[in-house]
């Protein structure tokens, strides 16, 4: 492969116009041991360990939806395609990405336009994750440039595919450390005809999460289950449940759920669809913890019923604000950006229940000093290092973004 005349790898920002050009640039950077930051829209650039890269590889030149078959529930787009374009295209045919991706700019105070590649690389999933699966579950195919400058494909455009090792899953949530994604294919879903939200007011965290899980254990296919302690969504605590489906079905399920949840107090249906949509958007985007921007924010995943106990343990020795999504299994928690930002306390509180935590927002010096991603057990770290070497032998992609050494 030859390098295009328009670009040399000594430029600070490399913007390939094609997959082939991207591969050539990566090969040249690998040969020169030139580390690269990968940049889509940059909306999540401030997550993880700061990367010392000599150049930035931008996906700005790799755009466009390459396939959309509504009847087959599949869409594919080049990595630099704005997420908004994909969501708009799907909405025109009454469809959506199943996992309800967040607008990360709200919490991170960032600007720019989120891209398909950035979404896939960060495996970011919103409230519907409990019912519809994570971003990684909707990803059915990828094309990427590995550290040798080779174009690799895995998966494809069909939703059932067990041919060979599933590198799609590896690419999801690797934060760019395993290569430059050039194209991602997603399984999509029809948008529901009706969305209904029930709210119970005034429950404490333990009771609120209990109510969420009572609903999640019902046959009514809850697609959103969040608890906002007092002072976040309103003066009183709000326990929120969402049901989506055809209108008669949603109405029936609302009625059944009200009955089921009676022991927790009256469950009122939010009448204003706009208000309900805004509430779930705020849960999805973590808007409740957006301010003050100076505070550190953790994203904690644990067993749902353990959520309140983990949060209470942190609140016992720090000024913490938090709320629960995923029926209590996802805790978003803000603390002052001081010392270790409660890292040790959170990991200790998590230990008896299992789970993991990511420092989602903090100043760069703190992210450099702490481990923003959950430290891995030694054998898993060894495997991760091996995988990194197997994909990116020169270690040029986002070095150290997730963990030192990979």
């Amino acid at each position, binding site marked *: 492969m030859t390098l295009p005349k328009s670009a040399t790898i000594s430029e600070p920002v490399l913007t390939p116009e094609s997959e082939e050009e991207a591969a050539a640039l990566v090969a040249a950077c690998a040969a020169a041991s030139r580390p690269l930051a990968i940049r889509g829209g940059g909306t999540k650039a401030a997550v993880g360990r700061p990367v010392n890269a000599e150049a930035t590889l931008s996906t700005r030149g790799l755009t466009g939806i390459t396939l959309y*078959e*509504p*009847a*087959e529930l599949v869409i594919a787009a080049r990595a630099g395609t704005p997420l908004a374009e994909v969501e708009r295209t799907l909405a025109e045919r009454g469809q959506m990405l199943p996992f309800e991706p967040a607008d990360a700019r709200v919490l991170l105070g960032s600007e720019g336009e989120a891209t398909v590649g950035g979404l896939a690389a960060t*495996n970011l999933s919103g409230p519907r*994750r409990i019912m519809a*699966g*994570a971003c*990684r*579950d909707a990803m059915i195919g990828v094309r990427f440039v590995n550290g040798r400058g*080779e174009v*690799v494909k895995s998966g*494809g*455009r*069909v*939703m*059932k*595919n*067990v*041919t*060979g*090792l*599933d590198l799609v*899953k*590896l690419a*999801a*949530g690797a934060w760019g450390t395993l290569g430059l994604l050039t194209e991602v294919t997603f399984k999509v*879903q*029809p948008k*529901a*005809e009706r969305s209904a939200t029930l709210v119970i007011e005034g429950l404490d965290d333990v009771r609120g999460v209990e109510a969420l*899980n009572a609903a*999640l*254990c019902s*046959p009514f296919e809850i697609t959103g289950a969040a608890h906002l302690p007092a002072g976040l969504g309103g003066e009183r605590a709000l326990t929120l449940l969402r049901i989506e489906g*055809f209108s*008669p*079905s949603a109405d*029936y399920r609302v009625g059944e759920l009200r009955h089921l949840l009676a022991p927790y107090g009256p469950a009122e249906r939010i009448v204003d669809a706009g208000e309900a949509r805004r509430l779930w958007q705020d849960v999805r985007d973590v808007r409740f913890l957006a301010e003050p921007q100076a505070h550190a924010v953790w994203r904690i*995943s*644990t*067993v*749902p*019923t353990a959520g309140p106990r983990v949060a209470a343990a942190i609140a016992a020795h720090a000024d913490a604000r938090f709320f629960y999504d*995923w029926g209590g*299994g996802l805790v978003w928690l803000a603390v002052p950006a001081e010392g270790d930002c409660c890292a040790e306390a959170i990991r200790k509180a998590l230990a008896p229940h*299992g*789970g*993991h935590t990511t420092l989602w927002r903090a100043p760069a010096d703190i992210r450099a000093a702490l481990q923003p*991603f*959950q430290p891995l057990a030694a*054998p*898993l*770290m060894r*495997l*991760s290092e*091996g*995988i990194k070497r*197997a*994909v990116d032998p020169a270690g040029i992609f986002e070095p150290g973004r997730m963990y030192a050494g990979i």
Partner: protein
Amino acid sequence: MTTIAFPEPDSAVLGRREAIIAGLARLLPADAVITSEDERRAFETDALTAYRRMPLAVVLPSTTEEVAAVLRFCHAEGVRVVPRGAGTSLSGGAIPQEDAVVLGVAKMNRVLDIDFVNRTARVQAGITNLAISQAVAHEGFFYAPDPSSQLACTIAGNIAMNSGGAHCLKYGVTTNNLLGVTMVLLDGTVVEIGGAHLDAPGYDLLGLVCGSEGQLGVITEATVRILRQAEGARPALMGFDSVETAGACVAAIIGAGIIPVALEFMDRPAIKVCEAFAHAGYPLDVEALLIVEVEGSEAEIEDALKRIVAIAERFSPKALRVSRSEAESAAIWKGRKSAFGAMGRIADYLCMDGTIPTGQLPYVLKRISEICNGYGLGVANIFHAGDGNLHPLVLYDINKPGELEKAEAAGADILKLCVEVGGCLTGEHGVGIEKRDLMRHQYSDIDLAQQMRIRGVFDPAWLLNPAKVFPLDGRVVQ
């Protein structure tokens, strides 16, 4: 005479057989090491019965520690290991080789913990798929992936093959329902991947392990999601006079925003055989039959079926029947579920497992028919129409010399066709030995080399299930 090659057995390992067996016997209770030829014979093949190889020995450990001891020993001795669940693989994923020890996990078959509130179950890996659902049924829960072999197949095998089933359009496949595993690496290291929470930290090793066909490690325990059962379910049956019309009807149902829990397709030969066996009341004068099932309360089912029937009527179905009773639903499903068994009564067959973009169905079925005609063979097609997973049954007669080879050749042509139209070689059965030599039709050498380099991180010496998945030539060895 069959066409798939096995590697030459390592004569040095064969020569050390007695010492290897003695070494294994020191690690395990006497009844966990199987050496006699009679007893080993039960392990010489799986559901791809045309192929069989007698393993060096078989071990049936009862604990993660015993699995670790066996793997550590085999690693140190350079002995190949073929992990085995229940041996139901249709792609030969569990077929041994002469110089390998079969490591069966079937003795580890207990439920360890059920957490209904958090909707998870922790099980030993040798438990059968159906036993998980049975263990949680009294509280109204179930484990979603439901391969046809669910009575016999193990969760270990399901994880190795990333198994699916008839209901994955709504519920996903194994990888979407798996939260954590305990896995033993080849050197005996025990690792915990994931847990009872959602989404593991770091690289998605769980996603990598799922579907890796026993080549990265041996799973001994798993945590899976369990789901609350729907209040009820009911199918509708519709027959069309062309494959195109049936395909268009499927597209219209999905286009209307309806995701049925199952959407099954049968062509005329499949309908005929299933009806003769199950007496399900299938129409015999149609070219294509759809079974569409929806879930929910009675009122929800009525509403959804009304919508589906209204769509189907736009396509002038030759037959259209909504099930009105439990017995009728059971009969409709009995026909579909007995398809493979019913076909087995009239002919030998190879069950293929490609996936295609669903819009390509009419073209693909036409080509499949031409391909099989070209070899002088019959074919019947069963299709998970919602997700594109196609099961052509290539019919042959084992007693006619050369017919199996012809059927294999036809099967290979069909799978290449699936790839050509944008699909893949296997939707839920796995590559095993069956599709190993077709991998270059789906993947470039670069794609395969990348997969093999990652495989090499876990097993650099290619000791774990080595004859499978990747073509025997051109292997990347570190």
